[in-house]
């Protein structure tokens, strides 16, 4: 599932495979702005069926944190 999620992030951000890993910090990724963040949260919900609650979704700083809040 983590692999799938990374794939989905890379797809949403139009990045090459391998750019994103568990240690990636959101602010370090070019293009991962607030809009992109919403799209990623939306894609995780619609494509993977994982709903990250609103309160937690706005407040994520790294991919590791994203995994944690998604419970994967």
């Amino acid at each position, binding site marked *: 599932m983590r692999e799938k999620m990374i794939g989905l992030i890379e797809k949403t951000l139009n990045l090459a495979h391998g750019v994103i890993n568990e240690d990636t910090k959101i602010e370090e990724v070019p293009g991962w702005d607030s809009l992109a963040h919403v799209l990623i*949260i*939306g894609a995780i*919900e619609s494509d993977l069926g994982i709903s990250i609650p*609103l309160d937690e979704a*706005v407040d994520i700083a790294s991919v590791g944190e994203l995994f944690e809040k998604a419970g994967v």
Partner: protein
Amino acid sequence: MKVALLSNINADPINRYLNGCKDIEIYEPQGYGNELGVLLNRDSSLYDFAPDMVFIITDLMELIGRDLEITAAGKKIDEWFALFESSLSEGTVFYVSDAFVHGFEVDLVWERSVITAVENKWDENLYALANKYSNVRVFGLNRIIRLYGESNAFSRKMWYMGKILYSAVLQKALAEEIIHRTEIEIRQPKKALLLDLDNTLWRGLAGENDISPVILSEDGVGLAYKNFQRGIKLLKSQGVILGIVSKNNEDDAISIIENHPHMVLRLEDFATYRINWENKAENIVSISKELNIGLDSIVFIDDNKAEQALIREALSQVYVPDFPVNPEELSSFIAEIYRQCFEKPIVTDEDKNKTKQYRENQTRKQLMKASVDFAGYLDNLEMRMIRVNPEKHKERLLQLVNKTNQFNLTTRRLTEQELANILRDNNSEVFLYRVLDRFGDNGIVAAAMVEYRNEAVITEFTMSCRVMGRKIEDAVIDDIEKYSASRGYGELVGIYIPTEKNKPVKDLYSSLGYKKREVCDDGTFEFVISLKDDLVRDIHVERTTEV
């Protein structure tokens, strides 16, 4: 094409989809919710960008401040349109989304009419403006949301997080619709839709009531075909010229078109028709000349894959879509054809009367025959003909002899007993063939019987209309001739007994070089050919015999 998308909600995700689309340069909006401000300010970055097309997607609920009370909502809608109208400029096409009221509030309103009143108010304003200005068009947001379903189209979480109203699937669908709109702005729409009849406009075969009666009705499969016709009729009302290109006896087909109670399309709906046994490619070329429209303006619909291939091969400019496998797909198929080929930015009154004009202009002069590379097409079909053992396929043989009307030279019907006698008779030979092509197995489709007494006579020759017009008959006759010669006969006789239905084959023998020998009192024609000369036939099928 320079495109700008403006919205009162966050439409950036749609812009992201559009960005990088070839042929589209997309305006980078500054924020959202100020779409009228941007339009009204001639110094805004929008006018620096100078768009060819402006798309305005409006969430109605936001626009009316989430207050569904019609007086207040109506006032806001009127104001919006008044400002929008004053911002209009020539040379730019404006697409404005139609109404769809969405929000949790909708589920808390008891009266549906409260919602529809707001939606109607918006749409009335929009259509009035679209009728007034040729560069104002309706963007079918409502249709797209309905297509995906409200529960799939919206994302509440994304709304709270970033004022993104639509889910990812809908954003993509909206982006695709915008692309589609830019395409139809540039493209030349097709003009004419030419249609086959049997198993296309109806299920079944005209003139073959015993094998496959015409099915067209208010329920079941018949309804699927009827709805297909209803869709085609709607295309006609939008200016698409209709025509028929079909292999049938003209009388049989016309009789169904004019008299069948469930026909939606009648003869007057068609600008022209070619109902005959000639090559369809030639018929299409002849129609294109008659109506004076280019081949690249023609769409041809036929259920038969071989006919589809013939036209694609011979007339590559004609668009030939794949025909749906299941009848329940027919109505969405015609809607897709409409969008893909015929949809125009605007439909004029002149469009609506087009068929009438073409009918009036219809010329009756002899039309030139197209030179189509028919031989190349036939070779391309990769046909194989296998002579099979009639003893093993008696039922199919009887069916071919007793049920075929059109390609049947003598229309003699046989009982099982009579057939058994013929199969036992050393002075008779039965020829039975299976035909395959690159599209698959057509099954056992041709049968002939020859009597060898003081002369060799083809007493029966029948073929399924599925494989007519592919020179299979030439190969069958060639087979019979070679076999007859090998039995020592110097001549071969063919018989044609005319009936109501078998006109398609009345010239079969003469077209193969047979000479008319006698016309008997009962109307039977006898033809004869000498087998002593080497007959060279134009064969496009590989022949084998089943072991």
